[in-house]
């Protein structure tokens, strides 16, 4: 068993509190990404699990063992570093076997593990080379190999692909996913790249200012963001936000007006809980869901500031009449042009709604999306 449970973990540096009470339950064999902007505490959290940072409070359990106060080496973990951390004066074989040899492992066993890792990562022909004779991707493989030879219960990967070029990153991403599939070991992966997080993970922990903002499957984060931060962070181009006031509530049916809207917007929520009318709400809409319409159907009016043509699609940057900015994604051949006046409709079925505190107000998803999310969740449980 190598499930990991983190309870009320706190860590600060001087007066700066970096982790503010983290609680997480990661299942055995799960691939979990810590995702968040720079300075959100994701690397500190990973290093705390690795035992490279001393905790202020809280506990970490790996399987049935409390590893909070255990030395790094005793935690049964392996870590892959952002800049590979390969020993430049040792060849690949020595890099892989160094830790094992010093822990008193027998030579035959070391040989078996090194050869096994080399086979898995296809680096057998590189074993006698020094790190400087390797390409970025090969170095990354060796760094992962150093983790594999330890045969740990938990893999920790700290932005392992961030030093690679875009093409290699995609290749290595696929290889990492295959490696996880093959080894079946719990992996925690730190990244600020949401594409990596969304494509690799069973579940993603979105961190914001030292707190867990949401912990869910990739599709859950995208289609059911728990708050404004996650809604804005996941998805590219980022979600558009429009503030509005609630003018009428009839059980779960809401009518929104004013703010950035030029026409009332009627929405339905899953709950009939009363929403305060004196505080503004925020409507979230993904750029690809905005519709360019005639003036009479429009909820929003603005001027085109810039059109970025990417081929299959174009990103239209719009300045609204109330001064707010928006982005719409249209088909690549759409004739929209700079400085053009534009009319946009917000389809109610694709709207996200957030209360004055930024928390999501639950709304129903279309059945197909809901089924996909359920499938993702059930796959994890299985």
């Amino acid at each position, binding site marked *: 068993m190598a499930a990991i449970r983190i309870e009320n973990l706190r860590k600060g540096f001087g007066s700066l509190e970096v982790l503010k009470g983290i609680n997480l339950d990661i299942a055995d064999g799960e691939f979990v990404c810590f995702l968040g902007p720079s300075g959100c505490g994701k690397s500190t959290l990973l290093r705390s699990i690795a035992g490279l940072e001393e905790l202020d409070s809280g506990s970490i359990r790996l399987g049935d063992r409390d590893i909070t106060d255990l030395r790094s080496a005793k935690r049964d973990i392996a870590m892959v570093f*952002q800049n590979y951390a390969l020993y430049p004066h040792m060849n690949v074989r020595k890099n892989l076997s160094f830790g094992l040899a010093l822990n008193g492992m027998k030579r035959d066993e070391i040989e078996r593990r090194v050869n096994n890792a080399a086979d898995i990562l296809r680096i057998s022909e590189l074993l006698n080379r020094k790190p400087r004779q390797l390409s970025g991707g090969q170095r990354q493989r060796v760094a992962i190999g150093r983790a594999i030879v330890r045969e740990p219960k938990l893999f920790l990967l700290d932005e392992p692909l961030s030093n690679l070029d875009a093409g290699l990153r995609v290749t290595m991403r696929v290889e990492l996913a295959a490696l996880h599939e093959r080894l079946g070991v719990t992996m925690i992966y730190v990244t600020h790249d949401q594409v990596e997080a969304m494509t690799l993970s069973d579940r993603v922990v979105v961190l914001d200012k030292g707190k867990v903002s949401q912990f869910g499957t990739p599709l859950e984060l995208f289609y059911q963001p728990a708050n404004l931060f996650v809604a804005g962070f996941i998805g590219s181009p980022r979600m558009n936000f429009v503030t509005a006031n609630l003018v009428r509530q009839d059980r779960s049916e809401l009518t929104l007006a004013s703010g950035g809207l030029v026409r009332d917007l009627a929405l339905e929520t899953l709950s009939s809980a009363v929403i305060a009318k004196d505080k503004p709400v925020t409507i979230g809409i993904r750029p690809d869901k905005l519709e360019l319409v005639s003036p009479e159907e429009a909820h929003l009016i603005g001027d085109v500031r810039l059109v970025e043509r990417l081929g299959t699609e174009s990103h239209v940057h719009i300045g609204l009449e109330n001064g707010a900015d928006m982005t719409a994604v249209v088909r690549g051949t759409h004739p929209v042009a700079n400085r053009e006046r534009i009319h946009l409709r917000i389809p109610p079925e694709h709207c996200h709604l957030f209360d004055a505190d930024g928390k999501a107000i639950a709304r129903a998803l279309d059945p197909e999306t809901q089924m996909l999310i359920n499938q993702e969740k059930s796959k994890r449980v299985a």
Partner: protein
Amino acid sequence: MDMTYAGAEPKVARRKRSAIAHYAAPYLFISPWILGFLFFTLGPLVFSLTMSFYDWPVVGERTFVGLDNYRSMLFDDPQFWESLWITVKFAAIYVPFNIIMSFLLALMLHNITFASGFFRTAFYLPSVISGVALVTIWSWIYSKEYGLLNFMLSLVGIDGPNWLGDPNLAIVAIIIASLWGLGGTMLILLTGLKAIPKELYEAATVSGVPGWAQMLFITLPMLGPMLLFTFITSIISAFQQLTIALLLTKGGPLGSTYFFAMYIYDNAFKYFDMGYAAAGSWVMFIIVLLLSLGVMRWSAAWVYYEGEVRQNDGEGHA
């Protein structure tokens, strides 16, 4: 035809001139250094080599003697061997102590967070003090009657020895005084320590590599080029030891601190035998050169350079 020819000539000349300027400019820029090197380093070097083949009194006629100066120094002059032996003894103790103590100090400064800037400056300060001032301080420290060292020893009930008057202790006193200036070596090693990525240690820690092994298999190999550099410069400075011995003990007592550099100095400026002194200088140069080459060759086994690829390293670039 004529007109074309007449018109082309100045163009070619101009191009020629600009080509000369193009190639000459870099040399003109470095010429002050080249001239300085020729007149103040290479010139005297060749001059001293020539001198070493002459009987060259400061006043009087110079006589070509071939290799006589070298022959009599090596075979007829016991003082040469004595001074060389004293220098070798000094180097054998000073060089390892200088490197080990510098390394330990650098390690300590690397690991402390409190007032590290103050300590760095404090340890480096003796390196910038002039040799004469340093000797003045140490002659007071070593003084038998009024010295700081013997005063401190008296506080714990020890009757301090005559540091500079005892033939066995005088060389120890000079070694200690010389080690006072280890700040330069320490700074080089400290820079080297700071350049080692901390992830290497973290990776080792996670892999369960104990601290002593991290020192032995990560820190020392990563510091290899710096250690080699300080090793060679320490050997050179040990063989050049003159100021402290000359001013602190004047080679005494009973010649126990009569270093090889002092032997050369005395031949030149006491006995005014410039040819013999020049031969001594060349013997010293050859000894230091051979030692340095030996260390360089030995270093191939333990010094790793980031940019180096050795034949047995693999198949070349990926």
